[in-house]
């Protein structure tokens, strides 16, 4: 006998309701699991953990650059989420909520580490002539690669290395805005900096990562 309360995959849910995107379907399914978890259904909470653990781990790993820290952040985040489950009213999606908890946790760890070790990384940026022209003309327009179905493995590695090499303060902004999709205001509040400072760091981080990707294509 099938369990009518068993979670549908987002793809199946989207398929059963024309016009519903996979992400909408995932949010609806999360909401249903959250309702059950808030009623004390531990299995429903474990399903939420299963659905979000990889993305949370990815965020924590890229922010802290440490597997051990990332694993602890994921553990602490889900425990905090469970302990505050009844207080969560669901104005935001469950995913956004836990991502915010994890990001805050990672930022706290980074703040602590920053006191101990000074950042040594430098930001790459395009170079200009005295008259303000690009000193080096881009050789390849690789922008269409972003639409290709399969991402080249070597390129993926270069992007991960490039992101890891972004200096503290820039890497977090880039991950929270461009990967997590948080708002400028949210990031400014979490990091304790102004919105213009967030935008400035984001721009410089994008330029630095663009340089890395450009260098990758020049070498290929």
């Amino acid at each position, binding site marked *: 006998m099938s369990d009518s309360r068993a979670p549908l995959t987002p793809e199946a849910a989207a398929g059963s309701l024309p016009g519903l995107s996979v992400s909408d379907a995932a949010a609806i399914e999360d909401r249903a699991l959250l309702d059950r978890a808030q009623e004390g259904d531990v299995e429903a909470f474990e399903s939420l953990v299963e659905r979000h653990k990889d993305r949370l781990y990815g965020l924590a790993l*890229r922010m802290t650059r440490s597997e051990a820290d990332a694993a602890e952040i994921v553990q602490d985040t889900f425990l905090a989420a469970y302990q505050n489950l009844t207080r969560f009213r669901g104005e935001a999606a469950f995913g956004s909520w836990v991502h915010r908890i994890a990001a805050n946790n990672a930022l706290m760890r980074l703040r602590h580490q920053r006191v101990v070790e000074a950042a040594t990384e430098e930001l790459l940026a395009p170079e200009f002539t005295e008259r303000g022209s690009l000193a080096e003309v881009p050789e390849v327009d690789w922008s269409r690669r972003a639409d290709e179905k399969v991402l080249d493995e070597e390129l993926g590695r270069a992007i991960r290395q490039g992101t890891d090499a972004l200096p503290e303060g820039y890497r977090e902004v880039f991950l929270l805005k461009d990967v997590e999709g948080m708002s400028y205001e949210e990031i400014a509040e979490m990091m304790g900096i102004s919105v213009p400072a967030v935008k400035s760091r984001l721009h410089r981080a994008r330029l630095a990562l663009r340089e890395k990707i450009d260098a990758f294509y020049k070498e290929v």
Partner: protein
Amino acid sequence: MFNCKESIHSLLEYVEGELSDTQALELAEHLRACPPCVDFMKTYRATPQLARRALVDEMPSELASKLKAFLRSKLPSK
């Protein structure tokens, strides 16, 4: 009309649609005359898209098992 440096410095605001009408015009004029900056802009826009695809990590199975065990030790038993 902007030069390359001014154009590239204005890209974030351009992508976000936050340039003033005058700035947007200055940038558009520069881009019409500067194919390298057009390529630069395209690749600037593509950078976050590529990053989103590259930065997908899976929690290693060993860590996932530890997470499960940790939560089971903290959560009420089913």
